[in-house]
């Protein structure tokens, strides 16, 4: 079996969860991966200080799409305060595959977008 392109990664890539638009929404952000020109945006609906619902949109590689899909399942229901504290390790661990230095930004793009929408911090997660 392939180390990187595991079955569940490809499954999330081909049929990503929580992709599309969410209208109306309370928060949104759009980011690019400068390495490959990929684009990922997010719509977030907030209720009671938590992410009530969330949708990603855009295009990208298997790693960036699968990361967004997998993260979306954890992010829905999470407190906004908690979202602001998520870091790169959280995402990489959640993804569960060895991510090389060159693919790291692919894996972290979704967290960058979500943190940007929630906290306004547009820095790459560390």
């Amino acid at each position, binding site marked *: 079996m392939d180390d990187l*392109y595991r079955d569940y990664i490809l499954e999330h890539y081909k049929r990503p969860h929580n992709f599309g638009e969410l209208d109306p929404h309370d928060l949104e952000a759009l980011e690019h991966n400068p390495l*490959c*020109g990929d684009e990922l945006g997010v719509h977030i609906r907030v209720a009671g200080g938590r992410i009530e619902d969330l949708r990603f949109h855009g295009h*990208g*590689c*298997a790693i960036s799409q699968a990361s967004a899909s997998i993260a979306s399942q954890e992010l829905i229901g999470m407190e906004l305060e908690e979202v602001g504290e998520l870091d790169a390790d959280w995402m990489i661990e959640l993804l569960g595959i060895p991510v090389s230095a060159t693919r790291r930004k692919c894996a972290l793009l979704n967290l960058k977008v979500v943190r940007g929408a929630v906290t306004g911090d547009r820095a790459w997660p560390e």
Partner: protein
Amino acid sequence: MPPVVSPPTSLDVKADFPIFGRRFGGRELIYLDSGATSQKPAVVIDALAEHLRAHNANVHRGVYALAQEADAAYDGARRRVAAFVGASPRTTVFTKNVTEAINLVAYAWGRGSVPERPNIVPGDAVLITQLEHHANIVPWQMLCRERGAELRYLEVDERGELSLEQLDAELARGDVRLVAFAHVSNVLGTIVPVAEMCARIRAAGAVSLVDGAQAVPHMPVDVGAIGADFYAWTGHKALGPTGIGVLHGRAEAMEAMEPFLTGGDMISSVDFQTATWNELPYKFEAGTPPIAEAVGLGAAVDYLSGLGMERVRAHERALTAYMLERLAEVPGLRVVGPPEAERRGGLASFTIEGIHPHDVAELADRGGVCIRAGHHCAQPLMRCLGVGATARASVGVYNEPSDVDALVEALLAGREVFGL
């Protein structure tokens, strides 16, 4: 093995390039990314090292014997580099790369530092094309924004080609002061009819700049015959070291321009408030130049001349034809740009349905094959093509049909990984 449709082609020079002696996990290096940078032959590596080992001194200021050797090496390199593309050493300026060469023209020609004689004023236009690299877009965006000029684009048709009729129509509007375009597209591979374009631009009284980064390393180029006002290319894609680019210009244009970067070596004299400029080409080479890099590039063009650029072009054309044929065997693969190898430089950009280009490059690497994926510093073109990114395989003098075979095998295996 499928039948080989094109005649096998090889210059049989891999052994000249030490990096191909390396093994990656027991496998040979299969390098199909020469469009990004070329590998270096031993003669270039040795020339660089030998210069640093035995002839190193600063240029243009020492009277001792060693300094004279450095002078001779640097000026000799300039003469060989200029001769390689039919240019005069006096109008051959060494820069850091093509990006700096284009910025030199955008600043020194575009802005000028004589306020009463600006080359670009509000209402003027700069014309570029949809197939440009960011290096030949952003400097013109900055110039137009600063000068209140308009930046317009020649369109790329569905075959990846430009239209001379559209160029004529744009020039007929009477406001175009400069036209900048690539000789060979780094994404589509399109060979642009540069001589025809330069003649039309000259006849319309405008100035031409050609980005030859993807042309000079791969085909015979005669900048005199092309007739551009400015022609830029870079050393590291032409078997030479990084850190050295080349700008050729028409003498009258270069004479009339103010300097770009200022400081040491580019002056004739300096007093407390003013300075006068050194003669060409030194006026445009401020500070200590890339001396060892120039020596390396001199060795690189000697090596290419030894192979013969007609032979290099014939080899790469045949290899590209073979690559296009073999890539067509991969289901879902679509190549962008001109369909005929005759009309393109030695590269093919492609997409594979169901696999993102980034993953295509990763899967190629599993087969030991180095290719590039991304927007290739040409995001406006990507928008025209309706894709976010492509994968790109590009060849050099050292590539052989077996490299293409390895790529195709890796792509077919990659489709299986993705369950396609």
